[in-house]
């Protein structure tokens, strides 16, 4: 993946554009999903990727494998079950006490060894802090291509992975291929691929693989993990309803109006980037290109202009509702429902109307 996206190259004439897969890569088959397993649970993005990986594997007529790396063999066995139920045919399991907490060194070794032994043609990871930390070192160790933070995957006519990602802060999309190297690697944003439905009882096989490393080999030590146990912690990425505010709210005090509406709706709340810069909200509540990607059923944006960097983070919402005083605001280009109104006045009315409606319903039911 280019860190300095190149301009569109001419279709012919460049060696790099032609697929001339060296013989040593011809035996590379199958689609793998790295399963992010930490603190006793699987990161949802890994299950989303199993759904997407299933489609790619079916198209290529190969198997879909999950890769589970961790400290406890039984826990990983449990996690493997979830992988099978979400579409994996098999799971590669590397269980070793030194893998109990994520550290780059042993995880890179585990995944690299697996790739070199079992030779997948595609390896997908979630574009989380863990996935991006790991993918960068594994791809460099294997000297293969890696496409970051993708939002779309496909297989082209030549069996090549076409990975599409936003670049220049979301102003452009580019489709990237790794033609002459294997595996083809990509990290994919959480919440852009749909979660596949689980098929209870669906099963598969587990292939165990050793690590061949001891604690003495690993220089980095995990001293502590401080969970975000703050009760006000944002759950934006997986919220069904999100209410957000932008600079149009004019002041930090007015942001309370967003929280009030979110409270009545049982929603999570967030905002545009300038609000983080002004300190009205914390960074984990920023929505957009450099913040969270959200996929709620309902997204209400109050006083947000809808700049491209914001748009790419909310486009996956089922229903976008915009409140903005400027009828020409870009948000009206991608919202389904809009109202040209002052959010500072409308939000309290909306909160009151929803409160009444929802409490009436509650009494009735």
């Amino acid at each position: 993946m280019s860190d300095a996206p190149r301009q569109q190259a001419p279709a012919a004439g460049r060696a790099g554009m032609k697929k001339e897969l060296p013989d040593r890569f011809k035996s590379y088959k199958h689609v793998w999903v790295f399963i992010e397993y930490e603190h006793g649970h699987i990161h949802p993005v890994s299950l989303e990727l199993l759904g997407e990986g299933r489609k790619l594997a079916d198209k290529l007529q190969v198997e879909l494998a999950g890769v589970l790396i961790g400290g406890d063999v039984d826990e990983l066995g449990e996690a493997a079950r979830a992988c099978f139920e979400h579409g994996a045919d098999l799971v590669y399991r590397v269980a070793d006490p030194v893998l109990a907490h994520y550290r780059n060194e042993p995880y890179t070794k585990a995944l690299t060894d697996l790739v070199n032994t079992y030779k997948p043609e595609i390896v997908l990871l979630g574009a989380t802090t863990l996935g991006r930390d790991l993918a960068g070192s594994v791809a460099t160790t294997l000297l293969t291509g890696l496409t970051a933070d993708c939002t779309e995957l496909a297989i082209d006519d030549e069996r090549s992975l076409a990975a599409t990602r936003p670049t220049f802060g979301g102003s452009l999309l580019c489709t990237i291929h790794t033609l002459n190297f294997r595996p083809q690697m990509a990290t994919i944003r959480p919440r852009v691929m749909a979660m596949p439905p689980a098929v209870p009882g669906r099963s598969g096989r587990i292939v165990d693989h050793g690590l061949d490393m001891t604690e003495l080999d690993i220089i980095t030590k995990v001293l502590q993990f401080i969970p975000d146990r703050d009760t006000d912690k944002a759950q934006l990425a997986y919220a069904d309803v999100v209410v957000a505010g932008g600079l149009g709210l004019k002041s930090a005090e007015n942001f309370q109006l967003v929280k009030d509406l979110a409270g009545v709706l049982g929603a999570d709340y967030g905002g545009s980037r300038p609000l983080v810069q002004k300190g009205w909200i914390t960074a984990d509540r920023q929505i957009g290109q450099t913040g969270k990607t959200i996929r709620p059923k309902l997204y209400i944006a109050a006083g947000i202009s809808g700049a491209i960097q914001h748009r790419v983070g909310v486009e996956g919402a089922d229903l976008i509702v915009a409140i903005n005083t400027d009828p020409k605001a870009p948000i009206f280009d991608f919202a389904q429902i809009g109202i040209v109104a002052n959010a500072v006045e409308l939000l309290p009315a909306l909160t009151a109307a929803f409160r009444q409606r929802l409490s009436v319903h509650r009494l009735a039911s």
Partner: protein
Amino acid sequence: MHTVVCIKQVPDSAQIRVHPVHNTIMRQGVPTIINPYDLFALEAALTLRDKLGGTVTVLCMGPPMAEDSLRKALTFGADRAVLLTDRYFAGSDTLATSFALSSAIAKIGETFGPVDIVFTGKQTIDGDTAQVGPGIAKRLDLNQLTYVSRIAGIDADTREITVERRAEGGVQVLKTVLPVLITMLEGTNEIRRGSLADALRAARAGVTTWNAADAGITELLKCGLRGSPTVVKKVFAPSARTEKAVLIETDGRNGAQMADALIAAILDRNPALDADLRRLSAGF
């Protein structure tokens, strides 16, 4: 303590326009800036130097005009600036970029003294990959500490470093041994404005310019387009939705009436939301 900070000159993406026909970035007239995340890295390096002494070398791979960014970094207080520029580097993807930068860092170590910490920003705002830092770490066989929000401490004698890094669902406190590569997270600190002395020193300092040979790079096949396993096949603008928002009528309506109309439109569009909202608001 010798730190190397990798910085990239990027177009100010807030001001970028896409060519309506060719779907290419229109760079003309777009100002360039130092990648904002790299400034957090630079600030972290300068803070360490203030505490422990030593030097800060800034390194940039880019076209000759990228020298501007390095000069800027000098005015912020960096001690030395190296520009890595050669047509062989054109079209580098992250694998090729990490090769060139790691070679230059090795050369910086040989020329100006051993490097203890390599800093990069979390990612760039044009490429957004977050892959170059880990790539450099792997190639130089350094321990990598990505998404670092705070350097909690360095013991100069034992050469142990403790950092806090942002992980999924929490903060990981890690301890490791120098030399290391650190990628700095956004918002960790504000870049200082250099002092007048810094500005004067910067004006005198000058930028060291290296081509591939100067940086000791002989394997040109690992550079630029030829050293890049990834190929950009298509660049395009996000598809504009043709359907415009249904606008709620506001004329002559008070807030309560507008709110009712808005709720009606929402539920009209998606009746199933009614049940979802009841479930959520009841706290299930």
